[in-house]
Structure formats: C-alpha cells, structure tokens
C-alpha cells in the first residue's frame, strides 16, 4: 500500500520516525518547489540520499570533507567520467589518496547534509516506494535514524528560532552608525564577508542570499549574528502585529456511565451471531 502525502500534513521528522519504527526498506521521494530529493532506507536505516540537481560525485564529497583539494577533485572528476563511485573509491584508496574511512565519512556527511535540509522543507509531496533501491554503483552507508532525527529536530528548532528572529527576508540591511570601528575588531568568515559586500539599503536580504547562492537558513544565520553583534540594522517595514493565538476551548470531563456487564455481553453475543 502507498505511503504518500504532503509534508504540510506529515513532517520529515514524523516520516523518518515512522520509517525507523516500522523498519522500512525502500526509497522516499520528496518534491518541493522544483526541488526533488530521494532518500533510501534499508530495514529502518538511512543508507543513501540524492538531491535533484546534484550528481553527488564522490570527488565532490571528498572535497567537501577536506580529503581532496579543489584541484584534485576536479582532476578526479575529469578522469573518472565513466567510473562508478565504488570503482572510483577503490582506485583512490589503492592510490593512497584517501582511506576507506575517508570515503565512508564523506558519503555519510553528504547523505546527512541532504537529509538535514529536508527537515526545513515545510511542504512538498512525498511518496515511499518499498521496491525502489539506490543504484547498484552507489556507495551506501547505513546510518541509524534515531540520531538523525534528534539532530534534525535540533537544527529545525534553530531554523525556526532564526525564522522567528528574522521572519521577513524582503527587508534591507544597513550598517550601524560607526561600522568601521566595529568591523576592525571583529573577525568575519568568508561567507560573512560575502554578505557584507552586498549590504546596502537597496538590496533585500533575500537578494543578498541569491547573489551568494545561500539558503534561507544560511543567510538568516549570518544576518542574525551581525544583528546581534550590532554591525547592521534592519531597515524595517511597517510592523504587523502577529496574529493572536486561537483560544483553546476547554473540555469538561464528563463522567463515564455506569456500564452493566450484562449489556456488553448481550451486545457481543448479538454481533457475533448476526
């Protein structure tokens, strides 16, 4: 039977929990706003994931985890166009460039990176297909879902907190009165400098994210840090009061009726012989 629906109604956390508890094997496909992700499971364990638009080349995974330089990754990609991940991994191990553990860790990080992104997807159609397995040539790494769910939930909470702090990405930023003094005394990461270079009342935060190819989460995190450090301030639009929470109607607990055993027994007999 089908296991399908929308993340709006059944979240990524709930889905992973279900797959874990039911020890399911198969592939979960999620499509949201033009993005598509496939996450594969075996007996309730996460084993592989692929995000649409990314081919998930092993060289890129190893570069991401710092096991190959950018140059090495590019060379490997160019010379291994027709190699499967498994063969390529074996070649790199045999050549002494990486260890088996490096490969496993790189794939693991890649898979988890995709799955953690899924936690922030608020809506999207999903479908679980029990017969669908990852391609044979892919390296699969079994990962227990309990920790993934815990970490994903923690990240989601952080994402939600940032969203609360910075709900509107269509507003602009400007430097506070004396930014030079402060910037001199603070060390910024490469990503933060990239954002700084676009800070201008004409650029919305969303535009800055687009210029830098950053996700909503990444830009929120950076802007929030800068706001907290007093480096920038928001050019705020007219504030809108948040909607008042709906009052919950309290339910008075009625007392259960005195049930006669004979009535229940007669009903059971009635339905059994009917």
């Amino acid at each position: 039977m089908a296991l399908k629906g929308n993340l709006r109604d059944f979240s990524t956390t709930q889905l992973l929990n279900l797959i874990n508890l039911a020890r399911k094997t198969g592939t979960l496909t999620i499509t949201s706003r033009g993005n598509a992700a496939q996450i594969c499971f075996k007996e309730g364990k996460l084993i592989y994931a692929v995000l649409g638009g990314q081919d998930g080349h092993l060289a890129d995974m190893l570069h991401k985890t710092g096991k190959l330089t950018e140059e090495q990754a590019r060379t490997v990609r160019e010379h291994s166009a027709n190699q499967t991940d498994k063969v390529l991994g074996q070649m790199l191990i045999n050549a002494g460039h990486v260890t088996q553990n490096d490969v496993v860790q790189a794939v693991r990080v890649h898979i988890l990176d995709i799955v953690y992104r899924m936690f922030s997807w608020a809506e999207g159609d999903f479908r679980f297909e029990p017969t669908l397995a990852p391609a044979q040539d892919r390296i699969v790494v079994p990962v227990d879902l309990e920790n993934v769910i815990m970490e994903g939930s923690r990240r989601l909470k952080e994402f939600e907190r940032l969203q609360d702090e910075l709900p509107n990405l269509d507003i602009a930023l400007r430097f506070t009165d004396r930014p030079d003094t402060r910037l001199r005394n603070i060390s910024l990461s490469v990503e933060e400098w990239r954002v700084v270079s676009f800070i201008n009342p004409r650029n919305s935060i969303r535009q800055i994210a687009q210029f830098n190819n950053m996700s909503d989460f990444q830009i929120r995190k950076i802007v929030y840090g800068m706001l907290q450090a007093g480096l920038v301030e928001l050019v705020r639009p007219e504030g809108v009061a948040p909607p008042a929470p709906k009052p919950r109607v309290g339910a008075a607990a009625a007392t259960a009726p005195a049930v006669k055993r004979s009535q229940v027994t007669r009903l059971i007999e009635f339905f059994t012989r009917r």
Partner: protein
Amino acid sequence: MQTVKMVVTGPFAAGKTEFIRAISEIDVVSTERKISSEAERIKDATTVAMDFGRITVDQDLVLYLFGTPGQKRFDFMWEILSEGMLGFVVVVDSTRPETFREARSILETFRGYAATPYVVAANKQDQEDAWTPEDLRIALKIDSRVKLLPCVAQDKESVKNVLLELLYAVLERLDEQE
C-alpha cells in the same frame, strides 16, 4: 427498555455517516447539509449536528450510534453527544494524511470528555492509496494497547468487527475495574 450509546467520531469526510449507515437497522437520521465551502467540497453534503442509527439487540436492549459532525465549527455538539457513551470509535480516512493531525486532536478531545474505551477504525482500506494500519498507528501515535482496526465503512461485516472490538475493549475495562 435499556439503551446503550456509542459515538462514532473522526475528521471531516472520514466516513462516519457511512459507518453508521452500514450497520443501522433504521435509515440513519442524518442532519446533512450541502457543503458551502469550496475548500471542503470533497463531498456533496456533510453532517452538521449528528447522525443517528439504531440497533435492536433484543426486547430489552437497544444500541444507539451517534455520529458527530466532522467539521471543527460544529464541535460544540461533540461534548453533548459524548454524554453517557459506552465507548467511541474514531474513524480515520487512511488515504488522507492531511486529516491525521485532526484525527489525533479529536481523539484527545473525546478522551478528555470521558474515560471510556475507544478504538480507531482505519477506514478506506480497500483503496490503493490507503496507509497501512501499522503505519497509521505510528503516524497517529496510537498506543499499542489501543485497537487500531482496518475498516471499510461501506461494508457491514467490517463495521460489525469494529463495534465488536470496541465491546471487547469495554469488557476488558470492566474486568480491570473489578
């Protein structure tokens, strides 16, 4: 004449009226009205006050089935209908995960009304898109001690089985109390 009462509840369009119709010996006294909201136009009419079905067990005993309105704006009827119930059935449309949260909420609300036994009927199990009862149990966070039963509300035998299981649950509760 003794009467006992069971309540059939669940989200909008879960199949509560069909459930009662399948088993009632009388034509179900239904308070259906045409759907006015476009968003809820997945069926032509909906229950606005209650459905009422009757099963005569013998000369002295009659079972009444009350179906609750599924739409949230009629929830003022729920507590009235739950007064004095022997137990309740939560009907869930297994093909519509968008209603699972509502089903869970309704279940908790009815548990708050009275500490009576209940079962969950996983309706529309004959449809291809239906979630399995095992998956539904996890999705709805139903305790393993609570009966979650596959069901097709149009099928009398299926409905009878759900009611029987609720009666067994009532009996078990009586055993525990004694």
